[in-house]
C-alpha cells in the first residue's frame, strides 16, 4: 500500500504537509486555497509556513466565502489548474455543497464527458476536541452518496503522505477527509506511491471483521487488541476510500470470518455504517453467522462537555462490545 518502509517516523500532520509541499514543488498547476492557509498556517497548522516557500499566489488566503472559493477551485480546475482547496471543518462544507454536488460532480456528465474537474478538496472532520454542535460532525457518508465524486479518508501516516498525489493525479473531484484526531498520529510514511482506491487490512484475524475508516481505525485496532486478550481474533479493515468502496476486499474478509462489525463516527441512520452493513449482507448473506453489527455515532448534535462528547461517538469499548455480541450471535438492533 505505501511502497517501501523508511526509517522515518513523522506525524500525520507532517505527512500531509510534506505531500502538499511536494505537490507544489513538482507541479506548477497546483496551488492551495482556503481560509487562513497562509500566515495563520491553517487552523490545524497543516499548511504552516508553506506560503513563505511558494508565495501567496499559490498558498492563497481566501475571504470567508466557502461557496465562492470552492466554486473558484472548481472553475480553476476546469481552467487547467490542479487546485487543492481547504475547508476548515466539515460543518462549513455545507456552505459549499451546491458547488460540489451540483457543479463539480455533474459537469463531466452534463457535458457528455467533455470536461474534467480535477479539483482536490481537503476537509477536516470529526469530533473529540469539545468543539460542540457546529464544528464536530462527520459527514463523510453524505459525500460518499454522490456519483461523480471520489471520497477518501487517510487513516495512516503513509496515506496522509501519499494519497494527495494520487488525488491530484485523478481527473475527477476528490474529497479528502482528515480526521482532526489523527493529526498527531505518528508513523512511517513509507516511500509511496499509494493508490487512491482499495481498502487495506491493517490487522489480520480470523474470527470477526471490523471495518472502519478515518478516526475509527486506531480505535478499531485498539479494540482488536482488547478482543485478542479475550481470545477473539479480529481482522481490521481500513476502508481508505469511502467512494468507491472496496467491496471485494470486505467480502473476502467476511467470507473467511463469517462475522462483521462496521464502525463509523457519523450518525447511524442513513450513514456510512448503513451502507457497509447493507453491502456486507448483500455480498455475504449466506456465509454470515450473525447479523452485521453497526457501531456508529449517537444521533445527537455533538455536545460540548467531554463526558457527553465521548459518549456520542464510538469508543473502543463500544467496538469491543459489538464484536463480542457478534461472536455470541446476539442481534444488536438499534
Amino acid at each position, binding site marked *: 500500500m505505501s511502497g517501501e518502509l523508511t526509517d522515518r517516523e513523522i506525524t500525520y500532520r507532517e505527512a500531509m504537509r510534506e505531500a502538499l509541499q511536494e505537490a507544489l514543488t513538482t507541479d506548477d*498547476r497546483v*496551488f492551495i486555497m482556503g481560509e487562513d492557509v497562509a500566515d495563520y498556517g491553517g487552523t490545524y497548522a497543516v499548511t504552516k509556513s508553506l506560503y513563505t516557500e511558494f508565495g501567496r*499566489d*499559490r498558498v492563497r488566503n*481566501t*475571504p470567508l*466565502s466557502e*461557496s*465562492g*472559493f*470552492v*466554486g*473558484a*477551485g*472548481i*472553475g*480553476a*480546475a*476546469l*481552467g*487547467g*489548474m490542479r*487546485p487543492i482547496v481547504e475547508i476548515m471543518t466539515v460543518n462549513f462544507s455545507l456552505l459549499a455543497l*451546491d*458547488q460540489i454536488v*451540483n*457543479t463539480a460532480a455533474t*459537469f*463531466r*456528465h*452534463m*457535458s*457528455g*464527458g*467533455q*470536461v*474534467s474537474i480535477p479539483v482536490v478538496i481537503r476537509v477536516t472532520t470529526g469530533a473529540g476536541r469539545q468543539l460542540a454542535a457546529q464544528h464536530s460532525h462527520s459527514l463523510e457518508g453524505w459525500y460518499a452518496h454522490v*456519483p*461523480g465524486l*471520489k471520497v477518501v479518508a487517510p487513516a495512516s501516516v503513509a496515506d496522509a503522505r501519499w494519497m494527495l498525489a494520487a488525488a491530484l*493525479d*485523478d*481527473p*475527477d473531484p476528490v474529497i479528502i477527509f482528515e480526521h482532526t484526531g489523527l493529526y498527531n498520529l505518528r508513523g512511517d510514511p513509507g516511500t509511496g506511491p499509494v493508490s487512491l482506491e482499495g481498502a487495506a487490512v491493517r490487522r489480520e484475524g480470523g474470527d470477526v471483521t471490523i471495518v472502519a475508516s478515518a478516526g475509527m481505525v486506531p480505535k478499531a485496532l485498539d479494540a482488536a487488541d482488547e478482543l485478542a486478550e479475550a481470545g477473539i481474533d479480529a481482522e481490521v479493515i481500513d476502508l481508505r476510500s469511502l467512494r468507491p468502496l472496496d467491496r471485494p476486499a470486505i467480502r473476502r474478509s467476511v467470507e473467511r470470518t463469517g462475522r462483521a462489525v462496521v464502525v463509523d463516527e457519523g450518525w447511524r441512520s442513513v450513514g456510512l455504517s448503513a451502507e457497509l452493513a447493507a453491502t456486507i449482507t448483500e455480498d455475504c448473506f449466506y456465509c454470515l453467522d450473525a447479523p452485521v453489527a453497526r457501531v456508529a455515532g449517537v444521533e445527537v448534535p455533538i455536545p460540548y462537555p467531554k463526558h457527553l462528547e465521548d459518549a456520542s461517538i464510538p469508543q473502543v469499548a463500544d467496538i469491543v462490545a459489538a464484536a463480542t455480541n457478534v461472536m455470541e450471535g446476539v442481534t444488536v438492533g438499534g
Partner: protein
Amino acid sequence: MNERSHMNTDIRDARIGLLGDMIRIRVLEERCAELYGQMKIRGFLHLYIGQEAVAAGIVPQLEPDDAVVATYREHGHALLRGVSAASIMAEMYGKATGCSGGRGGSMHLFCAERRFYGGNAIVGGHLPLAAGLGLADVLADRRGRVTACFFGEGAVAEGEFHEAMNLAALWNLPVLFCCENNTYAMGTSLRSSESQTDLALKAAGYEMPAWAVDGMDVEAVRDAAGRALATVRAGGGPVFLELRTYRFRAHSMFDPDLYRDAEEVERMKERDPIATFAARLVADGVVDDPAVEALWAAARDETEAAVAFAEAAPFEPVEDLTRHVLAEPEDHR
C-alpha cells in the same frame, strides 16, 4: 478600393453581422418553441426571445481562447460562440450527437472546444466558476484571456453572486460579468426582490467598475462590451455590465405568465432588438428589405438543417447509462 471604403465595407458587414446573428437566434428559438409543442424537446425550455442583442453584442467579440459560462437561457450564446445549430438542436432532442452528447438538454449546452462551459441551471451557481476560470488564467499567466459570465438579474440576490464578485475584484481576475436584467426572475420583479435596484451600486460594493447599457440596442451593447473587454484584457480586473433587456416570452414553457400585463409586454415588443435594428440599418442605407429577408431565409435554412440533423440523429444506447460519471481510463492523464 481605397482604405476608407474598405473600412466602410467592414463596418457595414459588421453591422449586418449583428443583425444576422440576432436573427439566427430568433429563428432557432421560434422553432424550438414549436418543437416543444410537438414534444420533440422536453424538460424546461427557456427562450431568449427579446434578449438577442445582448448575446449578439458580446459573444462574437470574444477570442477563441476566452471562455463563456452561461445560464439555462443560453441557446443564443452557444450558437454565437460557434456551437453549431445542429449540435444544439440535437442536444435539445437528447440525441447522442448533441453538443453535450444528449445528456444535458436545453439547460446544459456544453462545448469544450469552444470553451463554452454550460448551460448552468443553479441560479448564481456558475459565478464562482467564472471567477475560478479567471484565476486559472492569472495563475497560468495566460494574459489577455477573458471569461465572460452571463446571468440574470435574479442571480444578484444569491450569496454566490456576492462571493464571486468579491473574489473577482479582490484578486483582479479577468472576468466580464454580464448581468442580463430582463426585469423578472420567473415571476418576481427586481423591484420586489432587491432593496437596491440600481445594480451598478451593488458592483460599487466590490469596487468593481460597472456600466448600465441599453440591452435592446445591439450596437450599444457591442460598444460597451468592447470597452469593457479591453479593460479586462489589459489586466484592469473584472467589469460588471448591466444589460437592460426584456424577455418577450414566458420564463419557460411551463410559465402561465400571470405576473405581468400583456400590455407591458406589447410595449416592450415595440423595442424588439431585431426589428428596431433592422429599421435602423435600412434607414442608414446599409441594407434594404430583401437583404434583411435574405438573413431570415438563411437563418431558416440553418435551423431547418439543424432540425433535420436532430431528427435523424441516434439516441445513446441505454447500456451507456453510467458513462461520464467518472473519467474513463483513457481520460486519465
